[in-house]
């Protein structure tokens, strides 16, 4: 049995491409469950890629908590979205997860490695794209890819193959040879994504990934995200674009004013109620707080 990674239609035939939308199909056995069957099973039975327990973060001793008691997991084959309004604490949570920012209390494990105790090993398991798409603008695109490949210890033959795969998705084209300082916002985002995936990380973290992308690339990225988790990887991303979240995520962690207010299984919700209004729920939740 195979299913389409884009429109999630299940096919009994062994087709490689979806007859409806032309998207790539993957084997159901690859780990992804488009109907939320596995989500109903106890989480302990799945392999955790990310585990966040009781995360507390503040920017200075006098400052209020930016993140309070946030806990969630992300398993193999799962896309988890962090959802919240501007300044809710999504980016701060992700930065703690990436090891960019220190945190006061709690525990973060990436593929079993503690981000504080085994920082280097934990970071080897992930790739990330920051919300500001910060890159080394004085490097060319290809030099940046080389730099990331060196840092993630990617062998020469693997990086060549991998770059070709990524180029097919992101279609940066000839500008990859140019200085990043000459790139547009969207091109910078593409090179950041390519750099973060050059080592095929187990976990891909994206902070507001769709902002600034053209529709074609956005669609390609969404498709790629499904394919990527179908290979047994995990993705965590933050967004306040509710449509994107509803379309992409298996589960959503709702954060407001630094607090985790809810955790929703999107697939289960839609299975139970196909007319579920995510936007309505989000806004109502925000008002009641």
């Amino acid at each position, binding site marked *: 049995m195979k299913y389409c990674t884009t429109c999630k239609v299940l096919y009994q035939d062994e087709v490689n491409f979806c007859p409806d939308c032309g998207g790539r199909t993957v084997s159901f056995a690859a780990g992804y469950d488009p109907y939320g069957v596995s989500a109903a099973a106890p989480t302990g039975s799945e392999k955790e890629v990310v585990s966040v327990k009781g995360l507390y973060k503040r*920017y200075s001793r006098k400052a209020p908590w930016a993140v309070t008691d946030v806990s969630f997991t992300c398993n193999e084959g799962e896309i988890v979205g962090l959802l919240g309004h501007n300044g809710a604490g999504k980016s701060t949570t992700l*930065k703690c997860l*990436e*090891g*960019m*920012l*220190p945190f006061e209390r709690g525990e973060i494990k990436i593929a079993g490695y503690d981000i*504080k105790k085994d*920082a*280097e*090993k934990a*970071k*080897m398991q992930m790739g*990330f794209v*920051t919300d*500001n798409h*910060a*890159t*080394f*603008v*004085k*490097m*060319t695109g*290809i*030099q940046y*890819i*080389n*730099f*990331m*490949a*060196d*840092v*993630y*210890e*990617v*062998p*020469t033959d693997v*990086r*060549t193959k991998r*770059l070709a795969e990524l180029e097919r998705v992101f279609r940066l084209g000839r*500008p*990859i*040879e*140019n*200085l990043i*300082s*000459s*790139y*547009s*916002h969207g*091109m910078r985002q593409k090179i950041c994504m390519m750099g973060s995936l050059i080592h095929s990380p187990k976990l891909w973290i994206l902070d507001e990934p769709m902002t600034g992308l053209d529709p074609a690339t956005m669609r390609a990225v969404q498709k790629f995200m499904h394919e990527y988790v179908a290979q047994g990887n995990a993705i965590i991303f933050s967004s306040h674009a509710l449509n994107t979240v509803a379309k992409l995520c298996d589960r959503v962690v709702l954060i407001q004013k630094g607090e985790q207010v809810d955790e929703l299984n999107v697939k289960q919700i839609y299975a139970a109620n196909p007319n579920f209004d995510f936007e309505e729920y989000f806004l109502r939740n925000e008002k009641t707080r």
Partner: protein
Amino acid sequence: MKRQDNALEARAIGTAVKEEKAGGVKMKKVRAILRKGGQERRSAFRAGQFDFVGFLLRLVLVAAIVALFVLFFGRFVDVYMAVKTNGETDIPRRATELLTILYAAITVGMVIGGIGQLGRELFNSDDMRIFSALPLNEKTLFVAKLFNIYRGQLLIALVTVLTVNATFAWKVAVTPAFWALTVGICFLLPLITIAIAAVLVMPFQLIKRFLRERFFLTFLLVTALLGVAFWVYSLLLSGVKQLLLGDSLRYFFNEQVMTAIGKACDFLYPARWFANIMAGTDPVWSWVGLVAVGAVGLLISMLVIKSILRRAMQARNQSSTGSLLRSGYLKPKHGKFSALLKKEFLLIFRTPSYMFSYFSVAFIMPLMVYFCMDIGASLVENLVGLDSNLELALFLTILFGALTNVFCATNISRDGEMFYTVKALPLNFKAVFFSKVVLCLIVTAITQVASAILLAGAGIVTAYDALFIAAVGIIFSFVNIAVATRYDFNHARFSTEDDGEIKESSGTVSIVIVLGMVVSFAVGGLVFILKVLSQLNGTGYGALTYILAGGLALVAGGLAAFYLFFRLKQKYYEFSGGGI
């Protein structure tokens, strides 16, 4: 914070005036734009962001430079006023000549500064992107920008002209009108310098654009220019040395020289008019000339800046401008450390201002040491009467090494937000810091060895002494690099510019300059004084220089390494600074 300020101010500007009438200057909006500039400047003084030590040291540095100028210029005024032509002193004429030359120098300096300021305001200013989207008409923006540029130039004029005139007034009796005229000149001079700068700014920008991404050519050009500038400077110094050694200073300003100076001053307009007014020679016509030139200058500035403004605004909004550089190959796998090292190198080499501040200066550094040594050695030998080449070479090597490594005061800050990205990569903190320190050490080792070879090759010091000088120089350079890097890490200020380039020096830079100078004067001065004293007393000196300089270098090196690495791992993982 700067971005937040920009956004807030943009909103303030947007709501300040509700109606936009095409054509006219909206003074409310002009005031709003100027207020925004003021608030941004004041934001550096906010609690938690204000680097008091750095600010204080900057003030001290400026005060020291002004004090040195006042001291030396004061002495020179005495000498120059006493110069006789046709057997008689002519104070009004001497005063006019002296002030003409100085005002001309100030004008040139202000024009150079003005070109930079115009470039920043019109082409590189971060706020231009916001302004271009706001309901601000061209004239309003033009008036605000012109006022800003004028304010900057006025500040420079006040500092320089007041310093010159105050020193002059200290040595030569002046009337109260002199001070009123000084203020008048300060307000008039920027009109002229802005006009000249406005005419030159476009060719300058074209050259900049041509050199964009032609990094090696830029490096060669900048280094060559710096080399020529330093060569001219050394020629001047050499001339002064000859004068001092030959006791011919008072004979230097002979009839021939004075005639040449007089003739040159006759052509140095508009500086000559300023000098005429101050010295009281032909003031009426000078005022007429100045007011006319000022009015023409204002007109030229307005026309040129206005014509540039729209194009600059449009250019600022073009996100992709294409790239000349082509590098399209995947490279074989490198180690993490060499990848970081390459990244550091490219960041400096491909940013013209960084390239100039570090690579070009480092490239020229051996020549600086050599020229100064050549002059200093003979001066000391003739004036003090002893051979102290080793001690002097040590002093100069440490001093110029320190000045070259001032650039390391941005070792962390120049990474900008990418410092956080690097922090999230699977890299050990030691690799991150070592890559920065090692690159600087490679640069410094090359320059120190080159200057030692130059000194030994010229026969100024022996080969063994050259080896010792290079070793001590490298260790003291390590001290500068280590202290600068750690201090910058503790007080990092990331740029909010698009390219992350640091365009304003921070307090850290001042601290590193002062520290470098203190260390070089302390070590170089100590060994030099001890040698002089021992030779004057006739006591044996032996290997004291080697023991002292070598010992101090090792102690300082150890302390610097300790400072660099003290609780660095913890601080690195806890880092959440940068001021963004």
